[in-house]
């Protein structure tokens, strides 16, 4: 298992729309308690290891918040 994050959120860009949470096959995305400078609770993945790097979240994210990396 890689030490690097598989799914990276540009938190400042996140608008807390929650769409990503609906598509994750392993339901690991949740909304953070934090508020970013635009006043939104950003999405986050705490359990990076569970991520399948399937990209679904990035596909539906309207704000290009999410980068997904797959170990090669």
């Amino acid at each position, binding site marked *: 298992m*890689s030490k*690097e994050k598989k799914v990276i959120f540009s938190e*400042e*860009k996140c*608008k*807390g*729309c*929650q*769409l990503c949470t*609906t*598509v994750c096959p392993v339901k690991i995305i949740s909304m953070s308690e934090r508020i970013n400078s635009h006043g*939104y609770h950003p999405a986050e993945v705490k359990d990076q290891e569970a991520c399948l*790097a399937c*990209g*679904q979240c*990035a*596909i*539906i*994210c*309207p*704000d*290009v918040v*999410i*980068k*997904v*990396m*797959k*170990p*090669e």
Partner: protein
Amino acid sequence: MKEVAGKPAALTDKPFHYCPGCTHGIIHRLTAEVIDELGIREETIGIAPVGCSVLAYEYFDCDMHEASHGRAPAVATGVKRVHPDKVVFTYQGDGDLASIGTAEIVHAANRGENITTIFVNNAIYGMTGGQMAPTTLIDQKTKTSPAGRSRELTGSPLKISEMLSVLDGVTYLERVSVHDTKHIIKAKKAIKKAFEIQLAGKGFAMVEVLSTCPTNWGMTPIEAMKWLEENMIPIYKPGVLKDIEDGE
């Protein structure tokens, strides 16, 4: 590590000004990804509409021309006739394309203008705060149809893609949606094809993308996706409306 998803190069770093969960952002990204994949960023001139995507010129990292409301196809015609070797696309809302700009899209399409049109149908005027669009559904409440759209007074949802597909100049016309990832992936394929047709010099290609407007629909983004699926899809059936190559 390989990046399987991220920001396409054809998008600038500027954060979108769209409301939370607005699918304009998805459609921007898909378009940019297609531009990247086709390697045409430096050959492409995009025409931004007047609508919520009015600032599209800040997001696409290619030459951009801001049109007046509804006239993107005319502006695109001007650009394309000067640079027939370049790639020109318009990105238009339903108010822009299906209402004020009806004549311009009909005639650009009929001329077979060799351009690509991304038509974002969210069944409402987003930018101006949620007025009725020609594509608004029957009984849908908007700022200017507060009792719900009445068929008797304002007619039925305008099926402009069906209408345009009758025209000889239209080479390819597909309706897609972005309400879930499966449809998003399909939408991208369609957008890609619409650009490829232009690159091959084959004439007018358009993709209608069903899109949400959580703000003016008065819903959460998740509800909006569902509303699109349950209410728009039955009226605006996704699918290829015209594909000359398929002999259709």
